[in-house]
């Protein structure tokens, strides 16, 4: 059992064979359905708010806020984690997934204090998304400025 480069390579092949793959097709179908339902809920809220006479801009903001609130509440009740286990990317990609990724560390690290725990760790999952999202938008903005 010498861990030579050749044996390591052979072992990687053995591991690949022994490790079961995720059920890609089944997972895609579930993600499609749940992600679609979340979007439908969003559309439903949007239409309702428009009926109430809100502007297009305000409707978008209110709809996002409602979805974020629902997801955050569901995270607190321990339901969003279960949904995520079932739906995978279907519940991670929409804005509700982002909300879940902020709320879940906030709950988990509360015990280490509101500053050193909750405050420091709240963006542990969402932080990279925020950082690189802002960075990308700046780069795209500069490019747009020059080619406009």
């Amino acid at each position: 059992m010498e861990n030579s480069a050749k044996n390591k390579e052979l072992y990687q092949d053995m591991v690949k064979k022994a490790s079961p793959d995720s059920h890609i097709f089944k997972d895609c179908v579930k993600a499609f359905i749940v992600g679609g339902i979340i979007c439908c809920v969003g559309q439903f809220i949007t239409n309702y708010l428009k009926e109430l006479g809100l502007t297009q801009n305000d409707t978008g903001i209110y709809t996002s806020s409602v979805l974020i609130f629902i997801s955050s509440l569901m995270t607190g009740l321990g339901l969003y984690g279960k949904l995520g286990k079932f739906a995978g990317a279907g519940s991670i990609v929409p804005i509700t997934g982002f909300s879940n990724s902020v709320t879940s560390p906030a709950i988990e690290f509360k015990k280490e204090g509101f500053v050193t725990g909750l405050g420091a760790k709240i963006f542990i999952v969402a932080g990279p998304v925020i950082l690189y999202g802002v960075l990308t938008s700046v780069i795209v903005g500069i490019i747009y400025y020059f080619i406009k």
Partner: protein
Amino acid sequence: MAKHIGQQSIKFEKKISIAATASTVGTKEGEGPLGKYFDVILKDAVDGEASWEKAESKIVKDTLTLAVKKAGLTMDDIDYIFSGDLLNQGTGSAYGIRDLNRPFFGLYGACSTFGESISLGSVTIESGGASKVLVGASSHFCAAEKQFRFPLGLGTQRPLTSTWTVTGDGAAVLSKNGAPPYITGITTGKIVDFGITDANNMGAAMATAAADIILTNLKDFNITPEYYDLIITGDLGYVGKELTIELLKKEGIDISNNYTDCGIEIYDRENQDTHSGGSGCACSAVTFSAYFYNKMKKNELDRILFVPTGALMSSTSVQQGESIPGIAHAVIIENHPKGEL
């Protein structure tokens, strides 16, 4: 006195008795196939404490105390405690034993810790340095997830190769004099790293270490796998077990007929959604303390090779792209030690 044998083994001359064991587990483990064997099953993850970490320390304290009680002793009879866990700086054990007022060796061998505790405890007794020692290891699913992976409430899917950290503590009282089963030898693992970097496939990272230590044990003691009624690894799960069998087959050794893994025994794969099986320090510790010790006491098993397995990475080393070093410690436990061993 103990005799160093072969490359990595020690054969004990004293009959080091496992005088008593105790086990505490979480709700999920209690609902699993071994549920009836555990001494204490918790009602929830915090067990009346303010945090998961505090709950783990409480479990450590209660289980160690229970083991001593079951051995018909008091804490003052214990010369040393050897215990470890998965939490940073070993706080699970340190806080757990702080009120027990006994000399303490805090250990870290990741999920192989119980093997390490038994090995060092036995060596201490064999050397004449102690007559009774308390050994144990603990882990807590929620506390381990928090430290090593994602927040519990995060809606992600776990890969099928991943394992489920066992909540609980397993402990044993080792004694210079006493009834069987006896610890008759150990083979101490070296670090084996075959370049696995996927922290969600720990079975694969540890299987090479398990196969290596089983092979070394057989060579050092000049025996065949049939010498043992059962070879029991710690927490390789389904993926790791398959790989271990295959790796040893390549070395010309077939253990497929008398080999199991605690990570497979402790959960019902179909109904408990644990994917590749159980893991964590407590996986081998509670499964041995409750189930296999019981089987040995009833003479349903006479001779076993107990091999807790560990993956010695940290979340930092994984993030820095380091591969995962595996380790395994083998302990020979027998009711009727054979002269030739």
